[in-house]
């Protein structure tokens, strides 16, 4: 039998409660939480899915450190140690160990997606391994949000959540900015102005807690800071901006349209099937699913106007959609 202290409660109140629970050899903390659910507290809420450290669902704080419950072995604790399990501190609590991590999805939605090169159609992309391997490290991210949770910029300063996107989104920014075929040129400005990379003071806690051992600070945040320096803090570039007043021109353009203009027909030099698919056209960003005044999805089907969860692409899409508006070519097997 081992001693556990688990935070129980919801948004209104909560406290650490003590439990004594059986632990067997080879088990992880998540096993113990499941045994608690099975034997003592059937109403204990915890999020989990794969139990293999690949889905990133069971993020909690164990003895004060953000960890995956499924990857924390019970053998790392002494037999007489009381193990404290609490929900992630940085995000609003829903119940017990479950938190609302939608902050991360809001920030992810603000991130401009990969922008395909205007002169290439899908299938014509050619990249060399040396050009993409830096970005590949960041694709290992399982979105457990432990880095977002441990980052003191938002963990200790709620007010910074508006301006700061967090380490998970910085590796996304680095991945796209280092992508050999990404056509956007404003990613450095976006990282500085919209993501708030300047808030990071490189104390490296995100790297310390990453269960995928991504070198977030060394390989993503610092390179992005340096890329921002290329654009914003280089004295010669700064002088050029002042002399030629590029700042004012950009501000004017940004005020007119925050999203990049769709590629004009003249810039499109290639179409896979002339007249059919414009591979370079901007696809309208799908609207976010409808949320209530509290910013959350309706929790009960009684309150929602349709069965099931809202579509992540928005519930107001009219089918069939116009194929001219899509970057999609339906494959054909029979030539007619």
């Amino acid at each position, binding site marked *: 039998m081992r001693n556990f202290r688990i*935070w129980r*409660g919801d*948004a209104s109140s*909560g406290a*650490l409660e003590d439990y004594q629970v059986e632990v067997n050899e080879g088990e992880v903390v998540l096993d113990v939480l499941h045994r608690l659910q099975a034997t003592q507290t059937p109403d204990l809420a915890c999020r989990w899915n794969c139990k293999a450290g690949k889905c990133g669902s069971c993020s909690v704080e164990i*003895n*004060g450190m*953000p960890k995956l419950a499924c990857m924390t072995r019970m053998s790392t604790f002494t037999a007489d140690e009381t193990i404290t399990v*609490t*929900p992630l*501190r940085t995000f*609003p*609590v829903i119940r017990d160990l479950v*938190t*609302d991590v939608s*902050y991360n*999805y*809001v920030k992810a*939605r*603000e991130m401009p997606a990969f922008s395909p090169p205007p002169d290439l159609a899908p299938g014509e992309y050619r990249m060399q391994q*040396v050009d993409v391997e830096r970005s590949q490290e960041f694709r290992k991210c399982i979105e457990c949000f432990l880095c977002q949770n*441990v980052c*003191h*910029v938002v963990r*200790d300063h*709620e007010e910074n959540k*508006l301006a700061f996107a967090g380490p998970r989104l910085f590796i996304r920014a680095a991945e796209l900015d280092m*992508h*050999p075929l990404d056509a956007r040129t404003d990613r450095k400005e976006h990282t500085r102005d919209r993501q*708030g990379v*300047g*808030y*990071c*003071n*490189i*104390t490296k*806690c995100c790297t310390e*807690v990453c269960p995928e051992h991504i070198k977030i600070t*060394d390989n993503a945040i*610092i*390179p992005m*800071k*340096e890329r921002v320096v*290329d654009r914003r*803090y280089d004295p010669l570039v700064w002088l050029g901006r002042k002399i030629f007043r590029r700042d004012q021109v950009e501000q004017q353009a940004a005020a007119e349209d925050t999203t990049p203009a769709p590629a004009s027909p003249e810039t499109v030099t290639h179409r896979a099937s002339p007249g059919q698919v414009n591979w370079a056209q901007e*696809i*309208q*960003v799908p*609207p*976010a699913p*409808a*949320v209530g005044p*509290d*910013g*959350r999805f309706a929790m009960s089907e009684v309150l929602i106007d349709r069965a099931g969860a809202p579509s992540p*692409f*928005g519930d*107001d*899409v009219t089918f069939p959609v116009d194929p001219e*508006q899509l970057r999609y070519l339906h494959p054909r097997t029979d030539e007619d």
Partner: protein
Amino acid sequence: MTTTGAESAPGPSKAQPAVTTRPRAAIAERTLRKDRWWLPPGIVAIGLAAWVTYATVRVFLKENYWVAEHHYLTPFYSPCVSLECIPEAAHFGRFVPDLPILPYAVISLPILLLFRLTCYYYRKAYYRSFWLSPPACAVPDGHARYTGETRFPLVLQNFHRYTFYLVVVITAINTWDMFLAFGGEAGFGIGLGNLVLLLNVIFLWLYTLSCHSCRHVTGGRLKHFSKHPIRYRWWTFVSRINPKHMQFAWISLGTLALVDAYVMAVSAGWITDLRFFN
């Protein structure tokens, strides 16, 4: 995609409720960490404070920095540019008037200080140990407000790369001093002091070249490594030593203090240099 009512849909910028409002879990303890999280920042604080104290005392001592017999010059006085410098120790001329507040190496020391002060590793070290922002992971920030490196003066940390360019020159000067030390009053010779100087120069170069700014400006800023094979190879080399930047930072502090203490001890006559050759 054909959508209707896109204007009324909650876009990214309107989805602020999820970012700002609802309460977090009410946990009374400021941190639940039970390990000795205060130990690493404590050690760093003591180590940095001890080194800075030693270096400050040595720099303003203004004596025992040159071993005339073997031409050993401590890096704390290199290049010696003050008018009061020993002429043989001033390899690059003497042109700065001597004032009590100015060290003899008045050009190189501020550059070195700024380089280490804006270094990505030292920033982590002193933000954690001295500024407590945060002292350790999942331990609360010691300050109520936080704007990071977005405002003056911390926005100036972005000038790290320019200090890197200057420090390459200073490290080259230290290397030159090291070579000159092989030729003492009696001609070519090798002593323990030469080996200490050599060790120091090796670790100074490793620390300087493993710098994150060096990694970026020499190769990391490229989008297509395949079009720049030589810069890619150089970037690969820097990427190999860059993860050890912290170790090199500390080892080079250690070798700097060691070589300075050795030169001081030989110069003051407390010990005699162990000679291997001539």
